C-alpha cells in the first residue's frame, strides 16, 4: 500500500506557496474581470508570509499546513482568510501526529477540509466558487480509490478533476461573493477562487505523489 511521510512535508507547502506567489498577477487578473481584482494579492500575501516562516525549517506536512491555516485565518482576512484558513487548519488536524499518510487518511483529510470550507462559506457546487474545483476533486479521488486504483492514480484523478472543475466555472453564473452582483455578466470567465484552488490541490497532489513509497 502506497503512503507518504508526514515528516519533511513542509516542502510541499513551500512549493504550493511558491506556485501561488508566481500566479499573483494571473489570479488578480481573473478576479478583476468579475470581482475586485485582488485575489492574487490576497493569496500571495498569505502564502508568501507562510513560506517566509517555513523557510529553512524542517516541518511535517501537518505542521506546515497548520501554520499556513493560522496565517490565513489570523492575518489575511477577506473571504479567503477564513475559507482557506479553515481548509488548511482542518487538513492539518486530520493528519496531526500521524507518521505516514495513506489514501484513506488523505481522503479523510480532504473531506474535513471541505466540510470546514462549507461550514463557514455555505456555498454549493455550481455557485462559481472554489467549491467547483474542490468538490469534484475530492469525489474523483474517492471514486478512484473506491474503484481499486492506487494512491498515485487517485492523486492523478484528483488533479484532473480539479482542473476540469476549475474550467467548469467559465460557463457558470456567480451566485455567491462579489461576482454574484453581476448576474449574467459573470458568465464567460474563470472564477478566481476556483483557479487558486486548482493550483493548491495540484501542488498538494504532486508533492504527495512524488513522496509515495
Amino acid at each position, binding site marked *: 500500500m502506497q503512503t507518504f511521510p508526514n515528516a519533511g512535508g513542509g516542502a510541499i507547502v513551500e512549493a504550493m506557496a511558491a506556485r501561488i506567489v508566481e500566479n499573483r498577477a494571473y489570479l488578480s487578473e481573473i478576479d478583476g474581470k468579475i470581482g475586485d*481584482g*485582488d485575489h492574487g*494579492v490576497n493569496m500571495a500575501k498569505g502564502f508568501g508570509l507562510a513560506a517566509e516562516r517555513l523557510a529553512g525549517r524542517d516541518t511535517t506536512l501537518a505542521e506546515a499546513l497548520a501554520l499556513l491555516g493560522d496565517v490565513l485565518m489570523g492575518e489575511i482576512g477577506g473571504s479567503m482568510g477564513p*475559507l482557506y484558513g479553515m481548509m488548511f487548519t482542518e487538513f492539518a488536524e486530520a493528519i496531526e501526529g500521524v507518521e505516514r499518510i495513506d489514501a484513506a487518511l488523505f481522503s479523510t483529510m480532504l473531506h474535513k477540509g471541505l466540510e470546514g470550507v462549507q461550514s463557514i462559506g455555505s456555498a454549493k457546487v455550481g455557485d462559481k466558487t472554489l467549491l467547483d474545483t474542490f468538490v469534484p476533486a475530492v469525489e474523483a479521488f474517492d471514486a478512484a480509490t473506491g474503484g481499486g486504483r492506487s494512491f498515485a492514480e487517485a492523486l492523478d484523478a484528483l488533479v484532473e478533476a480539479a482542473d476540469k472543475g476549475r474550467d467548469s466555472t467559465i460557463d457558470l453564473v456567480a451566485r455567491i461573493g462579489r461576482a454574484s452582483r453581476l448576474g449574467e455578466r459573470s458568465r464567460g470567465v474563470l472564477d478566481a477562487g476556483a483557479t487558486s484552488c486548482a493550483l493548491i490541490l495540484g501542488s498538494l497532489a504532486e508533492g504527495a505523489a512524488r513522496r509515495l513509497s
Partner: protein
Amino acid sequence: MQRFINDPDNVVDDTVRGFVKAHRDLVRLSETNRRVVVSTAAPRQGRVGVVTGGGSGHEPAFIGYTGKGLVDAVAVGELFSSPTAKSFHDAIKEASGGAGVVCLYGNYAGDNMNVKMAQKLSQKDGIEVAVVVANDDVCSAPPEEREKRRGVAGEIFMWKIGGAKANEGASLEEVRATAQKAIDNCRSIGVGLGPCTLPAVGHPNFQIEAGTMEVGIGHHGEPGIRVEPLKTAAEVARDMARIVLDDHALPSGTEVAVLVSGLGATPLNELYILNDTIEAEIVGRGLSIHRTYVGNYFTSLEMVGATLTVLALDDELKRLLDAEAHAPGFHQA
C-alpha cells in the same frame, strides 16, 4: 493614479500608524494587534462595548468612528477586504467592559465569515457578542431579499445610534435592538462617476465610461442597477432620492436624517449641489429633515461619486442621533 504611498502592500499599516499619531486624544492602537484601533475611553466598565470593522480604503470609515459616544474598537482589514476573525476577536476583547459587546458591521461575505468566527472565539472567552449586519444599500438586492443587501453609509447612523445607546447604559439586547432598528430605518444608494484603483493592483478593476454613470454602485465598485448617460446634478439627485424613498415608503410627516457622502474624489461643493435637490425632493414628499450631514463620511479610495442615505427617525433614534459624539471622523456637540 498618482498617490502618496510607500510600499503598496503596506498602505494599511502606514495609514493606521499615521491615523493613531494624529488622533492620540481619541484613539490608540491595540497593544496586541496592530490592526485594531481602540477608543481611549474603552473599555468602559459595565457598559456594552461597541465594535465594528471592515476593509480599509473607506476612510474615515471605519477607524474614524472610534471615539466617545461612537465605536469603542475597530477591526481593520486590508484595502477592500474584511479584517481577520482574529482582529474582530481582538477588537471585541478591547471593547469588552463586562456587559457584552455588540458588533455592528456591513453585509459582505468576508465580514460575515470573520465576525461569525470571532463571535465563537469571544464566547469561549466568556464575552457575549451580539451582531447587527447593515444592509442599507437598496440597489444591491430587491426588497424581498433585503438580507442580501450590502451595508454602506447607513452604517454610520447604526454606529452613531448604537454608540449613543450603549453610552446610556442600555443592556446588550437593548443596544443590539436599537442598532438594528437604526439600520432597518436606513436606505442608501450610490452613484459612481469614476472608478478607483487598489494600489497593489495598479489599474481600476471596473470602468465607468466618460459621459456615463453607474446608478446603484457599491462601495467597492460593485455594479449597480443601470449604467446611463451622466445627467445634471439635479436629475441625478432626484433619481437618488426617489430610488431611496420609493424603497423606504415612509408616511408623510416622518422626520428623517440625511447623509450625503462623497466617494473620495468628488469635490465637496458637488455634494452640496446634490443636497440642494435631494432636500427639495425629500421635503416634497412630505417628510421633514431633522439633520443633514454632507461630506466625505464613507469613501471608496478615489472613486468619483456620491451616496445618499436616508434614516427614518422616531423619538428614540432622534435622541440618540443628536447625542454628543467625538471621533476623528465625526464630531457632534
